[in-house]
């Protein structure tokens, strides 16, 4: 196994079965350092399951997951150093914003922890919300705090599961662009799962298209849009209004 140094995440032959039902079928891909990969596909194609298996929240039936040169397949979610952002933000409602962001920093001494919380809150431009509770924030603000919380422990890769789906349309484009810029600025590798084709093509440096549990095509947006690998990808992307 040769490991290219600039690979942040490598997934090899990942398969998830529930009984006889194969939800994720032999999926392999890599995410390079600092790259944002969009993972797009129709509802129920297995993309969220794939994400949970990569994060270690669900056990894969077969396949391996590497973070850089580290094989994390056997590790539990809490040992993997993979950040995760959900559609519903999943902020801890009983903790203030600063405690939410500090949750993954327990290994740091107090002073460093405070400094890191401040740093990521500045990054998402929400320092003034540190002492508030999540329910006092707007949807967009909650989204940015969820991202700040995931970024705080400096994860090897961040996974975003439909992170903008709960925001209204107007906000969605702005927050999406901002999050992509933030991740690029931090040099953090990320996988963005979405069912929104335009969002996938706009935000991803590369786009992976999934259908019925299989990875059908992966490549730069203009290539996937311009030269679809098969009839499914062509049909799936045809109705998308997007300028390459």
């Amino acid at each position: 196994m040769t490991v290219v140094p600039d690979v942040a995440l490598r997934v090899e032959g990942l398969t998830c079965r529930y009984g006889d039902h194969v939800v994720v079928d032999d999926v392999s891909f890599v995410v390079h350092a600092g790259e944002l990969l969009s993972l797009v596909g129709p509802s129920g194609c297995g993309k969220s399951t794939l994400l949970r298996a990569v994060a270690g929240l669900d056990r894969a039936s077969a396949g391996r997951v590497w973070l850089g040169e580290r094989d994390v397949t056997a590790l539990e979610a809490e040992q993997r150093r993979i950040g995760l952002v959900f559609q519903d933000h999943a902020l801890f409602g009983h903790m203030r914003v600063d405690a939410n962001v500090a949750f993954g920093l327990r290994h740091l001494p107090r002073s460093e922890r405070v400094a890191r919380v401040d740093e990521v809150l500045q990054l998402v431009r929400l320092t003034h919300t540190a002492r508030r509770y999540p329910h006092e924030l707007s949807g967009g603000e909650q989204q940015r705090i969820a991202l700040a919380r995931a970024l705080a422990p400096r994860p090897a890769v961040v996974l975003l599961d439909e992170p903008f789906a709960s925001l209204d349309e107007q906000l969605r484009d702005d927050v999406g662009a901002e999050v992509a810029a933030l991740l690029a600025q931090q040099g953090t590798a990320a996988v963005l799962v979405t069912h929104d084709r335009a969002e996938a093509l706009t935000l991803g440096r590369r786009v992976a298209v999934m259908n019925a549990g299989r990875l059908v095509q992966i490549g730069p947006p203009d290539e996937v849009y311009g030269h679809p690998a098969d009839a499914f990808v062509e049909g799936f992307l045809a109705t998308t209004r997007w300028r390459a």
Partner: protein
Amino acid sequence: MTLSTRSLPGWAALTAVAGVLAAPVAVVAWSLTDPDTEIWRQLWRTRLPGMLRDTVTLSVTVLAGTLLLGTALAWLVTAYEFRGRRILGWLLVAPLAVPGYVLGFVWLDTLAGPLGARGVRSIWVCAAVMILTLYPYVFLFARAAFRDQAQATVAAARSLGASRRRTFWRVVLPAARPSLAAGSALVVMEVLTDIGTVRLFNVSTVADGVLRVWFGTGDRDAATELAMVLIVAAVGLIALERGLRGGARYAQHGARRGPHTRPLRGLGAVGALGGAVLVLGAAVVMPVVRLARWASDAHRSGATATVAGDFSHHLTNTLQVAALATVVCMGAGTAIALVARRRGRAGTALARVASLGYAVPGPVVAIGVVVTLASLDRRGWVPGGVLLVGSLVGLVYGLVVRFLAVGYQGVDAGLSAVPAHAVDSARTLGARPWRVALRVELPQARAALLAAAALVAVDTVKELPITLLLRPFGTDTLSVWVWQATSESLWVQAALPSLAIVMVGMVPVAALLWALERGARVTS
């Protein structure tokens, strides 16, 4: 899919805990495999047919009464708008703090005039008293179910041309069926277990029979055999409840604000409110006033102590036992809920085994505890174990066996309301299972934890049979004092401890209401 692939440590320890909690029930159930035909022949010839008849009559009557009263009152406070609706919604739960054996003797004395000393000791008056003390179970479950129904569902039924009445009978009530079944099961369980109220009215139920055989003849084997009838009844009841639920959870999507309320006016308003006030007067106000009068009489005549000690002796014991039992119940219940949730089917099975005692009437649990401790002693596993029978350990053991399910189910309901993504997030942020539990799951379920602890505390303060049978010599609780005084029809002497039980019980009931207002749920 299970909630998580990672389990909490301590599975083995918890299996052991579940075993310890199930043992007293198991040893009694074991006697079924080898029934003593002579005892049964004797029972059939003498008292058993009468006991069965009284038990069935009482259960059916109380069930019908609580269903009617609890459902009607719950509908009144969820579907109608009137002055004092909120307060009435709170007050109608208050009878939960008044034990049947207290309300029973107050009404016994009150009705002795018009009905005569003999006429008042009837199964029907007994049933009426039990309905007044037990309807809050149905009320709580029914109200929660009515509130949970999506507004849109009711609106849809109305738009399809159904009248309010038809909507209630065809849509609202059927959707509330699982909750009503759960509330009814609790009511019947209470009737089957009761010994204090039935004794006042000379109603010979099976539970009463167990106690009489135990104390009257000292024949523990016969008492154990008789107790089997209750276990069989309880198991049948649980099966029936499961059947009524139909295995379905009637989850409804959409805004859970309950049906639109409409103003209550005219004769209907007077009737409904009058009825509710009457219920409260009969179940809480009148008894409290009478108890207070009697208590002050007793105070003046100096009859405020028993051979075991003075008032503070009894109060201290009651609080101590209740606190110990609640802490152990909640500790074990929380640990089992946390671990069991991560173990899928095996976890659910473990939780069921540990909760077995709730389906079993108090006298049976008490017998089981005695038999368990004695046999552990005999085998040399717990040297001196039989000495624990008359100790605080034995008493708390019995109470925890009986009420663990109350704590466990409350915690489990609270935990299932914690968003799964919050748990997932905590894990990806590097939190180990126990940290996830302590920092994320339990804090978010705190209202439910408080509600569960409140229910356990009320139950232990009111509890009679286990306390009576297992209390350490010389340490009587308030409920034992009431039992002893009322056995000799000394109402005045029973008033002070009764009043204290009601007052002590009000605190957890208030805590329960507060927790429910904050979104805790009575079922999972």
